[in-house]
């Protein structure tokens, strides 16, 4: 069982030690990582994914439940408690979606075959254009790939820790992803440039120059702000879907969604 993940400080890009003692994230906690582009957000979650032990460019170390994870946990995907969705949204493996998920399930030592169709079904909740089990993963679009990988992380990865790198950039239904993910007892970390996601998470890690600069906890006012933004986001989303569906935006539509 994972109760918490602890990040021990490493070095920033200039080689100075990061100014925090340790940073512990506990089960059920949602965390966002924000900061300018190139500030080291992806590097931080990669450290977590690799369970770094001073052997990445940041020199950080990661503990599970306060202890150094066993070698086996670091190197065997079946034991790895962490699933990550990277910024790269392209698959190179020339397999059908079904075969791809089948082999991944095997790597994660899952025997129940039903999980494959369940995963595709979940992925299709996140994306407008449906994925078929026969579709080759190499021809999936960026958003479809992202949706499939998120569904895969939730069901096949079934990991207690999920790392998501900028899910907002793939044109997928963000709200659905957040709803599903927030109703679990996992540790979920979003790398994000999206204010709604940033405000909805309990903790916010701010990055600068390759280092953790600050850690903030969500305050009451921010929760309110998030609700407002979410409302706005839904309206924007509504217009977006109308446009995607080839509809024209009329006066009535505007007055409904921006009344």
């Amino acid at each position, binding site marked *: 069982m994972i109760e918490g993940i602890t990040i021990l400080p490493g070095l920033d890009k200039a080689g100075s030690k990061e100014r925090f003692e340790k940073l512990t994230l506990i089960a059920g906690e949602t965390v966002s990582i924000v900061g300018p582009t190139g500030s080291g957000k992806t590097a931080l979650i990669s450290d977590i994914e690799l369970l770094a032990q001073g*052997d990445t460019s940041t020199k950080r170390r990661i503990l599970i439940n306060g202890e150094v994870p066993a070698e086996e946990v670091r190197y065997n995907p079946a034991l790895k408690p962490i699933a990550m969705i990277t910024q*790269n949204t392209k698959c*190179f493996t020339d397999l059908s979606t079904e075969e791809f998920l089948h082999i991944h399930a095997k790597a994660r030592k899952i025997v129940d075959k039903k999980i494959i169709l369940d995963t595709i079904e979940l992925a299709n909740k996140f994306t407008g254009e449906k994925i078929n089990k026969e579709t080759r993963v190499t021809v999936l679009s960026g958003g479809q790939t992202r949706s499939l990988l998120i569904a895969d992380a939730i069901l096949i990865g079934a990991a207690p820790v999920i790392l998501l790198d900028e899910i907002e950039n793939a044109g997928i239904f963000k709200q659905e992803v957040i709803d599903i993910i927030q109703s679990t007892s996992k540790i979920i970390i979003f790398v994000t440039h999206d204010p709604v996601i940033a405000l909805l998470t309990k903790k916010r890690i701010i990055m600068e120059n390759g280092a953790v600069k600050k850690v903030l906890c969500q305050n009451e006012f921010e929760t309110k702000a998030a609700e407002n933004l979410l409302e706005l986001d839904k309206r924007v989303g509504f217009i977006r879907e109308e446009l995607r569906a080839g509809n024209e935006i009329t006066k009535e539509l505007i007055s409904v969604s921006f009344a």
Partner: protein
Amino acid sequence: MKLLVIAGPPSAGKTSLTKQIIKRFKDELRVAFLKIDVVKAYEDIELSREFQIMTRKIYSGDLCPDHAGVMVLGDAVEWAESKAADLFIVESAGLCLRCSPYLNQGLGVVVLSSMAGIHTPEKMGAMVSLADIAVVTKIDLISQAEREVLIQKIKDVHPNVILMETNALQGTSLHRLYELISHSEDIDKDNLYLKGNPPIGTCTICVGKKEIGWKHHFGVVKKLDGQIAEYLYRGE
């Protein structure tokens, strides 16, 4: 002297991995490096310039590259020992995939790019199945799920291989490899053997006869249809 034989297809990241290993060990071990390639290689110049270590290269040219490897490795080990090297790294070319360059001593490392096709581990035969360690590179370029699918494929081919994944440009997560190198035993140069079986050889084609059709050849001859002719078939 410790021996490390690194093999893998072209552009898999062998040299990038080698650089990380040299960076890690150059202050505690005297490192010597040999590159075996077929036509062209620049590693010797690059690595000696970057790390001031002893380097050499050999082109196999018209010789089968594995054959060349076997022939020169004896001399190369002598050379590295005469230079008092503590760690001798041999980077082998992509080769023809029939053979593997690993020896009964030291460590054999296969380097595979995570961008390579899903069937690559099966196609690479002995280069994967006889390796002690498999290092998957370029993990910064693909998704975690896809990496795990490739790892599963490698395990299907070689269940006991020690697997690790890295971004070879940054040298991430190579602790375990470094530990294995640190703990690997010194070789005994008079008892070095190939791990795999060399191909059945010395036929007339291998020695350069150009005539077409099995009638013109002896040694081990393969006919278009049917099995390889009786063992060491000698022609008619």
